[in-house]
């Protein structure tokens, strides 16, 4: 049992390393050759626009759920007045980016993995190489960039919707006036919190892009291989996002402390 755990821990670290190297290769390619703007827009449309409704939908509910939960906990203190600020803050800094990124890792990430994986397994990627084109440059790089940008924008939209969802449920069911709710927000949500939310949105987007492109590109074993890789891409993305969430919270928190204490901001 321990051997199984140890082996899987090693292989996970190995996979993480390979994914990072792949990501660096793609970014290097992008920096060197760029990518045609029209192709990029097309990819962003395919990947991003299709996911707007899902993101708005999910964001709304995530915000609502958090509002209910925070309200419950505040009730024990009689501190309901803080609902707007606290709910928005927690949603923006943490739970929002986390859960919405989870959803996007499915919609955007799994889709990209399946697409690239199918192309790999039907020899289209080999054909591209044989015809003299670099598949990373032609196929992967534009998709990678499209996923990063789309994920970022979608996450930001999702976060805004989440705050709206929280406000709505607060007004409808939790007996907190929308005006109070909204007015309370700036008391707790600081520029740092917004920075945290935005930074996480960007980093999660990069993670989704890197893992999904890597897994898609390295698919083997025919049709069942594609399914396998969609599965492992999804899991790998989620776990990496969770770890990144923790790391970012820590670092930005540390950065903030540093700025306040040392620089007096």
């Amino acid at each position, binding site marked *: 049992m321990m051997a199984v755990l140890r082996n899987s821990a090693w292989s996970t670290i190995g996979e993480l390393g390979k994914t990072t190297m792949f990501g660096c290769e793609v970014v290097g390619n992008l920096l060197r050759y760029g990518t045609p703007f029209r192709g990029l827009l097309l990819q962003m449309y395919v990947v991003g626009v299709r996911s707007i409704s899902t993101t708005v939908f999910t964001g709304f509910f995530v915000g609502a759920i958090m509002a209910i939960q925070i309200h419950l906990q505040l009730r024990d203190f009689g501190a309901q007045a803080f609902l707007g600020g606290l709910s928005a803050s927690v949603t923006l800094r943490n739970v929002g980016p986390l859960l919405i990124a989870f959803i996007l890792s499915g919609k955007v990430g799994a889709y990209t993995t399946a697409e690239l994986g199918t192309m790999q397994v039907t020899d289209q990627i080999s054909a591209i190489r044989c015809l003299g084109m670099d598949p990373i440059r032609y196929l992967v790089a534009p998709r990678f960039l499209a996923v990063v940008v789309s994920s970022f924008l979608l996450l930001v939209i999702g976060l805004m919707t989440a705050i709206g969802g929280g406000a709505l449920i607060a007004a409808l069911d*939790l007996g907190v006036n929308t005006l109070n709710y909204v007015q309370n927000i700036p008391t707790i949500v600081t520029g740092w919190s917004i920075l945290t939310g935005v930074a996480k949105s960007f980093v999660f987007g990069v993670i989704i892009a890197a893992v999904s492109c890597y897994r898609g590109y390295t698919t083997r074993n025919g049709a069942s291989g594609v399914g*396998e890789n969609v*599965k492992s891409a999804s899991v790998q993305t989620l*776990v990496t996002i969770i770890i990144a969430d923790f790391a970012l919270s820590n670092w930005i*928190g540390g950065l903030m402390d540093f700025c306040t204490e040392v620089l007096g901001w």
Partner: protein
Amino acid sequence: MVTAIGAHTLRILSHPVEIAYFFTQFLKLLARQLGTGRFRFRQTVDQLYSVGVESAGVIFFSIGVVSLILVLEFSFHMKLVLHQDSLVPAFSTVLLIRELGPVVTALLLVSRVGAGLAAEIATMKITDQIDALRLLSIEPFDYLVVPRWIAVWLAAVLLTILSIGVAILGGATIAAIKLGYGFGEYFNSMFTFSHFSDLIGCIIKASVFGNLLPLIACYHGFKAKPGSEGVGMAATSAVVEGSIVVILADFVVTYLFYTL
């Protein structure tokens, strides 16, 4: 343009109807199977083992990290609002039990199990194994879906509870290290804010998620189109829909359980 939107909307709306039909088919067959008393015990156990044991490591690790994140978050907010963070561990654990424990576990399972299941069944479909089963008078639902459904349901509940246990221990340790709490203090404060009903709520959530997820995954597996494209799409749809349904169901249960 309008017709395109209209057609698209129809397609989205018809989807839940199709899934609902799938569910009813499933329930019918389940009732029939329970009626005959035959039960594929061995297979269910195999499935439970593969789902549970394989996913356990990932889930425990993830929930562990999530509980650390929550401690950080609550610490930040409580210092801001209440100017003291003594209640942080208790609060964060409570949120874990009520919300993030079941949801994060479920989302991880959607990826691991949902995609895997959909891909497995989709591969069987495009290699004609499902038709082969029918020709052997074995009802695919019976043989494939029911054991997996039960296994995933049980696994979801068990894994959620165990992972929360892990998280509570983690929270207690952090509290001891960072805030100088004793274990006794920690558990006391935890129990002030949570009730037994929270555990029930957590189990209910895990059950709902564990129920819906395999059915959605199997649905997409059965519907797979031919070729590796079909398998990829089945797995992707299973993950996407599974995740969305988890959030939706989470909202419904949270609303019903906690606000009524």
